[in-house]
């Protein structure tokens, strides 16, 4: 099995389980009338770890899966998660942030974009749901809920994907520093 296929298989498994878990369980747990949403967190995490292209493709597949499974207008979630996955990948490629708060910020941004984007697209498509303070409150609560679970979700995504990813030079450097005490094998006595 090639490296790409391996990553693809893991992403497919991750997407399937995440959407299933979201539909079968997470969506039924309400806090202040709103449930958390795993999809933007998983897509952003995967995009951040695998890169912009993989992230965009993964986002499209997860979004399409969600649209098909929840009988929404096809393509809406797909479009939004393409952007989420792509954006997360580009953040990694351009900035390479390593702060511990990164997954949280990424999760919050992804959730905000996905939720607001969904509302805007539904509005543009002529959904009669009124834009009200209640909706704004719901969006804010969902972002907060997702922030709470963003770090553990990212940790799980990372643990699942990292073994399949090609060796990242930064990771290699860190591993070498850990095993050699920070010295290159050439400089050791």
């Amino acid at each position: 099995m090639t490296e790409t296929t391996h990553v693809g298989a893991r992403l497919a498994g991750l997407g399937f389980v995440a959407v299933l878990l979201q539909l079968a369980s997470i969506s039924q747990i309400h806090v202040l009338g709103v449930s958390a949403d795993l999809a933007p967190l998983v897509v952003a995490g995967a995009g951040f770890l695998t890169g912009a292209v993989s992230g965009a493709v993964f986002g499209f597949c997860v979004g399409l899966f969600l649209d098909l499974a929840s009988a929404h207008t096809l393509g809406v979630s797909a479009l939004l998660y393409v952007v989420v996955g792509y954006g997360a990948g580009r953040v990694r490629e351009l900035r390479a942030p390593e702060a511990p708060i990164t997954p949280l910020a990424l999760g919050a941004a992804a959730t905000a974009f996905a939720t607001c984007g969904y509302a805007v697209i539904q509005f543009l498509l002529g959904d009669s749901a009124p834009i009200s303070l209640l909706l704004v409150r719901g969006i804010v609560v969902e972002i907060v809920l997702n922030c709470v679970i963003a770090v553990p979700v990212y940790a799980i995504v990372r643990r699942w994907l990292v073994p399949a990813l090609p060796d990242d030079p930064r990771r290699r450097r860190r591993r070498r520093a850990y095993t050699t005490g920070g010295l290159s094998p050439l400089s050791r006595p």
Partner: protein
Amino acid sequence: MHDKTVRRRRAVLALLVVLSLILISASFGSSGTGPLRAVQNGFLDVLSPIESGANKVLTPVHDLTNWIDDITNASSQRDKLQKEYDRAQAKLVAEQALLRRAHELKGLASIDSSAGLAADGPVSASVDAYPNSLLVQNVTIDVGAGAGVAYGDPVINDAGLVGTVSSVAADASVVTLIDDNSAKEPAIDNTSGEFGIVTADQGNPNELALTDVQHPDRVAAGDFIVTAGGAITGGASHYPANIPIGVVSSAPTDTSPGSGTITPAVDFGALGQLQVLTKVPRG
């Protein structure tokens, strides 16, 4: 190499976005029986058993979260309902007070009318302070000299005679109740017209005594006792006639002058709205 990667990346992004937009357009334009709907329905058919299985597996998790949710909701609902109950209770109390006051005023109007007290200058009053001891039989009311109240003015409520003003300040007065040891009211049996004096019944705070009855056989249990409308001695109150005092509970003894007991018409523990008769003619 780098340009190729960038171009590839942009091409993938553009392709996916365009694909999404095509899907949105197609899905949005299609009717409930279009091909995309059929695909969606087929997908749902495949997925729903898996979803159902996952749902069953995760039932304990749902139960746990629902339990926590129920506890939290029950707690907040309890607080909310307690607040609603307090509000409703306060409203009920206020409405009951209004109703009671309306009944009392109606009763006073009735007694004013039946006893012809309109000319006696009735002034409405409320009780400010009840007796603070078993041995004290007076109340403080919220009107005084400023409202025309004077020493010796009779005080009534919707049930009958309450007492006499025994002390007057500018905006308050003290009323000595008719069950006080010092009180003496001339009264008559409303059936036979037999005269007697109503005083406190010593050792029996719930009753009054009817004394100095010259013809005890003319007073029977159940007769109404009303004010006679005259003064006993100089300086005593002039009660207008025919104000109810009570009902004979035990007829006077046969010996003359006889003495019986009366159950007061007024509940001294709940006087309610009062009237001070400020213009009763003095002898």
